[in-house]
């Protein structure tokens, strides 16, 4: 500024003038956005918890953007709940679309970092600790990180919300181990505060009911234990047994199911949002199983095709194949309209249903773990009954179904799509353990449909059940048409740019290249 000596003298003179008029009075106040909140009051923290709940399952906004990118376009297709009918979408042919993965990752972390704010503001180091709320938030963090680590493997978990330019990834082993530990801690706190409430109406799942959060926590502990049962059998056994004996019990009836209530217009049922767009239909694998079993849930979950009949289509169709009449969306079954927002937009979105607990216990029993006195068969049949009950089926039809010796049906259609059934397992409890495991996997898969494909895809990778049709086409050089050839999603390409340090560490912790063919830690 030395150059401006002349100007500077004048400037000094005018500065004095400025002082006289105190010209910046009120500028701080003026520069505060009064349509927003600077510090959250407790009731406002409750509201923030709603955002963390919606964001945690990628229900980011009224268009459910994150949900579409990672659930509808990845796990819904990989689990073969649905097949893609949108011609522009290549992910059903196993393609890894970087932009989608970037978007889904960002949406999830938006929710996860919102949750971290809540953990920070309720935790022991906050000015006003709220241990019950913190425990609920811990349960929720456990719930939302399971599907994410099952997509990618390692990911930022303990480092969430560190505000740094590099955010380190944790290994999947660390994440599962910490989730189990964290659930154990939360269960202790929740069990001692069952008369209390947390987040009130800000909790769009249980409305603040601690007893139900406690059951949810025990059930998640069982879910996580089952997942790591091959890779760490001893920890899995300990945790599963602790969950089965946990204070407050497990979610065994549909009244305790975890389901998010939409709050229009901001947050709708995401399956409802997506299913209105006509971009996917029932898969061929789903048709084969449901039709073969004469499963009443088919008509509860799916609707008749516009041109009649309950029909599914093969996964991995090319654009030209999607254009064929047989594969047209009007000739195949969408999910029922009750999910759709055009109906009334208030159908809750189920994120955990009682049937899963029964099937997990059945598997634990087959593993020889001490999870109670009920037999594996009783637990398996209880799971079917719970799932049937969820869709409104009780009594004799359910009993007949459980006793049925029906097997999956052939998938009928033009020769390039037609396929024989992949399995001969019945609904009725089989004699051999391997068949029993397949039955459990198959019935759990049906019970998870249509909103819990993240869990279904993870369990399919872990167990190989149910047996799913190969894809008609593959466009991923690291995969093939064989069902299950996609072992994970690649890390978002954006991470290699904005979080290089974290990403590189993540690849190391993955234990293989950042490809869709590298199996996850528990997938051994």
């Amino acid at each position: 500024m030395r150059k401006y000596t002349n100007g500077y003298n004048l400037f000094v003179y005018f500065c004095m003038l400025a002082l006289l008029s105190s010209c910046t009075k009120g500028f701080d106040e003026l520069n505060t956005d009064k349509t927003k909140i600077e510090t959250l009051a407790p009731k406002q923290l409750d509201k923030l918890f709603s955002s963390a709940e919606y964001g945690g399952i990628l229900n980011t906004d009224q268009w459910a953007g994150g949900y579409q990118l990672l659930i509808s376009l990845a796990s819904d297709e990989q689990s073969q709940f649905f097949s893609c009918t949108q011609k522009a979408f290549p992910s059903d042919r196993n393609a890894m679309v970087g932009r989608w993965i970037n978007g889904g990752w960002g949406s999830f972390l938006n929710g996860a970092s919102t949750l971290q704010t809540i953990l920070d503001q309720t935790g022991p180091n906050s000015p006003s600790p709220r241990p019950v709320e913190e425990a609920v938030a811990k349960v929720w963090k456990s719930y939302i990180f399971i599907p994410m680590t099952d997509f990618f493997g390692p990911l930022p978990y303990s480092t969430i919300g560190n505000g740094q330019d590099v955010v380190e990834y944790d290994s999947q082993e660390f994440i599962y181990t910490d989730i189990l530990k964290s659930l154990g801690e939360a269960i202790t706190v929740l069990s001692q505060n069952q008369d209390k409430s947390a987040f009130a109406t800000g909790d769009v799942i249980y409305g603040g009911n601690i007893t139900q959060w406690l059951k949810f926590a025990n059930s998640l502990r069982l879910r996580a234990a089952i997942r790591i049962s091959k890779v760490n059998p001893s920890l899995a056994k300990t945790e599963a047994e602790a969950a089965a004996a946990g204070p407050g019990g497990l979610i065994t009836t549909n009244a305790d199911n975890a389901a998010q209530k939409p709050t229009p217009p901001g947050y709708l049922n995401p399956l409802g949002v997506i299913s209105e767009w006509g971009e996917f239909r029932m898969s061929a694998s789903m048709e084969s199983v449901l039709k073969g079993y004469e499963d009443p849930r088919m008509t509860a979950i799916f609707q008749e095709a516009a041109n009649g009949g309950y029909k599914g289509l093969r996964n991995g169709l090319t654009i030209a194949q999607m254009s064929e009449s047989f594969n047209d969306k009007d000739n195949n079954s969408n999910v029922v309209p009750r999910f759709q927002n055009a109906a009334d937009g208030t159908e809750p979105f189920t994120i955990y249903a009682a049937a899963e607990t029964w099937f997990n216990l059945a598997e634990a029993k087959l593993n020889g773990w001490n999870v109670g006195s009920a037999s594996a068969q009783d637990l398996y049949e209880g799971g079917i009954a719970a799932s049937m009950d969820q869709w409104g089926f009780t009594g004799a039809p359910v009993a007949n179904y459980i006793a049925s010796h029906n097997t999956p049906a052939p998938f009928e259609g033009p020769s390039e799509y037609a396929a024989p059934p992949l399995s001969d397992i019945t609904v009725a409890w089989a004699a051999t353990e391997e068949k029993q495991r397949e039955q459990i996997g198959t019935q759990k898969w049906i019970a998870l449909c249509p909103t819990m494909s993240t869990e279904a895809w993870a369990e399919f990778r872990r167990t190989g059940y149910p047996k799913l049709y190969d894809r008609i086409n593959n466009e991923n050089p690291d995969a093939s048409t064989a069902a299950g050839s996609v072992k994970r999603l690649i890390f978002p390409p954006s991470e290699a740019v904005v979080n290089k340090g974290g990403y590189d560490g993540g690849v190391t912790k993955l234990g293989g290249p950042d490809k869709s063919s590298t199996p996850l830690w528990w997938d051994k």
Partner: protein
Amino acid sequence: MKGLKVMLFLLLVANLVTAQTRQIKGLVKDAANQGVPSATVKVKNGKGQAVTDANGAFSLSVPAGNVVLQISSIGFESKEVSVAGSASDVSVSLASSSASLADVVVTALGVTKSKRSLNYATQSVETKDLTKARETNVANSLSGKVAGLDVVRSSRGVGSDVRIVLRGDRSFANSSEALIIIDGVPGDLSSLNADDIASMNVLKGSSAAALYGSDASNGVIIIATKKGTAGKGLAISVNSSTQLDQPVNLRDFQNTYSQGSGGNYIRNSELGWGEKIVGQQVDNWSVNPADAATTKLESHPNNYLDFYSTGQTYTNGVSVTGGGDKIQSFFSYNNISGKGIVDNNTFLRHNFNFRVGGNITDKLSFDTKITYFDQIENNFVKAGEDFSNVNRQILRLPTNIGVDYIKDHYQFRNDQGQLIQNYWNPGSNGGENPMWVKYNTTNKMNSGNVKGLASLTYKFLPNLSLLVRTGLNKYLSNSQDRRFRNTYVIAEEGYFGLTNSAYTEVNNDFLLNYQGNFGDFKVNANAGGNMKSRTSSGLNSAASALVNENVFTLNNAASGKLSSNESYSAYKKNSLYASGDVTYRKYLVLSVTGRNDWSSALPSSNRSYFFGSTGLTAIISDMVKLPDYVSLFKVRTSFAQTGIDAAPYQTKEYFSVTPGGGISKSQSKPAVDLKPEITSSGELGVDLGFLNNRITTDVTLYKTNSKNQLVNVATPPASGYSSKFINAGDVQNKGIEISLNVVPVKTNDFSWSFYMNFARNWNKVVAISPNSPEFVLGSDGFMNYTKIVEGKPFGEMYSRGFVRNAAGKIVVLESGLPQITGAQNVYVGNSRPDWTGGFGNRFTYKDFALSFLFSARIGGVITSFTDANVIGDGFSAKTLAGRSGWVVDGVTADGAKNTVQTTAEAYWMSVGGRNTPAGEAFTYSASNVRLRELVLSYNIPQKKIAKTPFKSATLSLTGRNLFFLMNNAKGFDPELVVSTASGLIGTESFCSPFTRSFGLNLNLNF
């Protein structure tokens, strides 16, 4: 060049004729009979020049015999007077000029300076043609006329946004656009009536900016509007023009294959991969049960142009100027009405302008102005991947469905009496019947803008005055968005959106001006202050489902389907500044400016920031004796530093309230310690004039560095924020600007003049921040990212592309289709031009004048999302080849030559399409050269209108954008972009077709 030689010869002859001289004395006065100091008096076609003294007196040695004196002075119309050989005393009265200020530059706060004394590059724009070859937005008229000025516009139909950038982009977060100053206060071009413009000057560097404050760091376009002139009496001018915009199809569609896929006609297909059209009978696409079950397949090659029609714009205006000794006034009214090339895109605008000025006492004068602008725009045409963008739907119309037919068959009523869209693929996510979009997704925007200006000037002493001024700018708008029920995805149950917005800016200024002479030194000093306050607010309400079908009111919102969003922002900035020019003997000028701003948008610790400039001008031609053919040789240099604040509300972290009372966490980390951005610039220029300024040229070299930029860099989303604001970066622009004006021929009956300008800008992002070698500036959401990359020019574009082996060959998958990168990480080019230029000519012959302008914008690329879709979907003629079989020229993963046959359909659908297009395949050079403007005008001779009340009458025929001499972007106009946002320059996405304009303009003066 022949004319030049003739001129040189004549000049030499004139020099040889040396004759006796004599002395004459005289007085130069203004209309108020006051002496005009510092006026230049020259002998026409001869030597000898004098400057008037403080009283307007001069004395000059002239050749014997009759001479013609040319008298000129800043702020006055130049005049020629004949002095008889016998006369020795002459008195000249000069009229003050407002319409012609070519040699005068209005700088900060209306301070008029001689262009000769400026130490920075300026270029004035010929205003005559602005009112002939009319553009609804004056900004569009500037292309090619000013060296270094780059214009792109958005595709929105009439009244599109226009982006003007001088000397390249320099700011990541702030606008790089030039500041518009109208009569000393900030304004905008879009609401300006071209008839009101008296002068327009472009100040390119930021040294001109120190006095306008930070908003001016990207250069300034200074406009003076007309005002009344003392002593001129009443003058009335009437202007009427008609302009026709003719859509031109630059695209090449295929008309051979029907809708469908795999070579089969499919009645509900949205693709053009169907069967060969040979007049066969097929299932009717129509879903109206009343329509026949089958229809005949026929192609409609003219669909695209059949959809659009000729746009029409009618401009009518009147202006009245009157001036007494005390009060002078100017009034104008201008009315523009018209319709766009989509015929329900209509437009009506009124502009009123009333300006009164004068002297209250000898010492106190005043100037006031009120302009009012009102505009109603119906159904502006959207651009980009917007389902209600009608361009998008017409481009996706299969050739077997005729525009003429769907005009009357785009809807029907079902048994319940509901209006149903008749589209071949009901419920489509993205497809709609183009006519349904045109008539049933409509919008309306009404905006009003009032600008008021009042100033008082008090002359304490003849050389000391104080100006006090208030300027108010208020803009209000109301817009409505209506979508009928059964508009797929975006309005299944109907939609009604209502947005109100308001913007107010108040500027209070004072300015002290002192002028003094100290021997050979002349001092002109200014000191002033400005208090700026801005508020903007918006309210946006939407009913996303309507109970009663197609009744558009918010009350009709279905339960839970009404949402509202409001915004408010307030901002203040106070400034004090001073400037001083010291002139030595009229040929050496040293200028210094300094300014301190206090901005509310910055945290208190960084709120106050100082910046300034210094410059030196030497008029060599006045310092030393140069050959006579050199009329001006000026060297100028300046250095400036400008501080720029930021948008409000970026220094604190907030939680937002979402519709329904939810609370969400901010994803952007605030800039708690926000500092002002600093742009340093230096320039060096030479202005040359030859042969009595019949040849003038300006050459300027400049370099600017913008540092401390407010950058919103991406951070790992897991950190809790997906982005954060930091002060970092260094963007450098270096360049050269050359302009040349030549009058090769000038006779009584015929003259020819031309101008050329050229500007080359080298842009480089020297640094971003230690942790971020790059960040994303913007994205169209589907195809491209526009990035800022360290070490590269501003605005690098990336997209998906082909995976290639080491030898650069395309790698194919087992299917024989090319492997496309998953991420948008393939560099496709830079979105900014390398150089821009213009070449304008003006011929006059008697009462005829012909002018035309070619403009060039060379370098840079444009990517076409439209092509990705129309090619991917099989509608482009490019998709005709390979339909029955195609082996992609590529190699397999193990390096073997690909032998697997695929089809054009499979190939283009994997390379193009909406969701995952490989932009690499749809990127073109944006270089283009066009005939930008052509004006033929005829001044009806005085004798023909002698019996009419008209003093003069001019008839003009005009053309704009008549044709391209070169356009590498086949199919569209590369200057028509999806949005004028900095991160979207370089992306064409379902824009309107190129239009060519013809106009007829009549100007009458009473």
